[in-house]
């Protein structure tokens, strides 16, 4: 499955590709991961409602597990780690689909694992031997795509813009790009790693004004072991980002597209406040804000949060 470059991606003249895109519904297996279904199911709900509404059909991938997260099997046993990835990828392969992923870590873990399996026949053999005992097999056909990639390249900002019922008029947004979709670009990139723009264009397609800031590309610091081993250091690190946001922008909301970015940028704000509400910028996953703009019920698609979202939601959907 081609992944890189505009021509390689579809192998068709642009105008034919555009027509095809209008006619066909893209179809993906929805890989849920762990955090989203367990802690932030409103994001799962938002994806399940909003993506089909813009032409991305989602199919359940039954029996998937943890991707595995880098702090689990990848930190303990490489063959076991690749076997878990291959287990998950094989579920998509059985259905003849690519998987679509929201969580940055899941995306990176699955995508790196697939590249390793494709480049190392010996490793693939070992992993398939492990899978065999469980009645599974992975050839390497099914790949993994991130939501931003699919929404930008398979759907396109234009189509999204025309589907919007409640535009983000008069709303200022700042963006947090998920690191795990940027590096290493050779294996998992779909945007320009040094100057990503797809998420910004997708947000602008909803009618919001996106304010740039100097630390826009700084990692949130919430993933992996940093926040777990040295939480206060991770908070200090995030403070630099929030100081830049406060100094340089006037945001109504922060838009992310990774479950860790979502949970961490909320938690850190709460901890930086220590009792006062000086820092209280609501954080949304892109699918949540898309779902709101498409007219879906905020109680279903944006109901769980640490930083209150009611006011900005009211501004978007209008007073009930």
């Amino acid at each position, binding site marked *: 499955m081609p992944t890189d470059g505009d021509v390689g991606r579809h192998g068709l003249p642009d105008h034919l590709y555009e027509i095809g895109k209008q006619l066909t519904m893209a179809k993906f297996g929805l890989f849920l991961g762990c955090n989203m279904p367990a802690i932030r199911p409103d994001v799962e709900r938002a994806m399940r409602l909003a993506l089909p509404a813009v032409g991305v059909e989602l199919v359940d991938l*039954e029996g998937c597990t943890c991707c595995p997260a880098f702090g689990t099997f990848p*930190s303990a046993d490489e063959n076991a780690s690749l076997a878990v990835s291959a287990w998950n990828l094989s579920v998509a392969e059985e259905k003849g689909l690519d998987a679509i992923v929201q969580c940055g870590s899941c995306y990176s873990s699955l995508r790196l694992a697939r590249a390793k399996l494709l480049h190392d026949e010996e490793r693939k053999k070992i992993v398939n031997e492990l899978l065999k005992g469980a009645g599974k097999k992975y050839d390497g056909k099914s790949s993994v795509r991130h939501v931003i990639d699919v929404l930008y390249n398979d759907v396109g900002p234009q189509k999204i813009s025309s589907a919007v019922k409640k535009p983000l008029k008069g709303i200022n947004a700042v963006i947090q790009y998920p690191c795990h979709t940027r590096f290493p670009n050779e294996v998992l990139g779909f945007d320009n790693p040094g100057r990503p723009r797809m998420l910004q264009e997708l947000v602008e397609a909803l009618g919001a004004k996106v304010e740039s800031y100097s630390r826009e590309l700084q990692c949130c610091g919430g993933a992996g*072991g940093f926040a777990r081993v040295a939480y206060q250091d991770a908070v200090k690190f995030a403070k630099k980002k929030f100081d830049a946001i406060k100094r340089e922008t006037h945001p109504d909301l922060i838009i992310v597209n990774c479950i860790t970015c979502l949970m961490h940028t909320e938690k850190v704000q709460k901890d930086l406040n220590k009792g006062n509400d000086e820092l209280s910028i609501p954080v949304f996953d892109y699918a949540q804000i898309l779902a709101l703009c498409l007219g879906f019920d905020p109680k279903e698609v944006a109901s769980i949060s640490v930083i209150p979202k009611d006011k900005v939601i009211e501004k978007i959907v209008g007073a009930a």
Partner: protein
Amino acid sequence: MIDLTKSNKNLWKEIMEEECGDIRHCFNCGTCVAGCPASEADNPLLIRRLVRMVLLGLEDKLLDDGTPWMCVTCTACEEMCPMGVKPFEVGLAIRRWQSRKDETYIPPAVCEVFETGHTQPVEKSKELRKSVGLDEVPPTVAKFPDLLKKFQKMLKETDIVKNNDYMFKE
């Protein structure tokens, strides 16, 4: 002073797996550190220092060093390394070596994934999921106990589970 006569000259061969780049190409430029969030911690993760320790064979020192576990996994280092060393993979390889040498390094989350298939208590979120209009149990392995059994059967054939079977409960 570091006494190199007592160092393990083959340490790099023990640690590096196929996934890593050739760490002998590292010339200690520090680009991996410059872009690393965890390098800003009070007790920082300095991946180039870890690479030096591996190359010099400082086994005991490396076994006592917990900083590889602070990696954010953003993988910026891998993008920026001018020598193709793949510092992110090096960090994970050091974690695996530590886990092999000293089982107390094995993260509890490894056992959780074995037991439930997930790192989060998916099965305990029924009410929350229902409140947003979703099925109480997601269609992951949490919903299919027979698949979880197969998943565990697969993992029981791996070294990590075989060598530490007392940690892994079904």
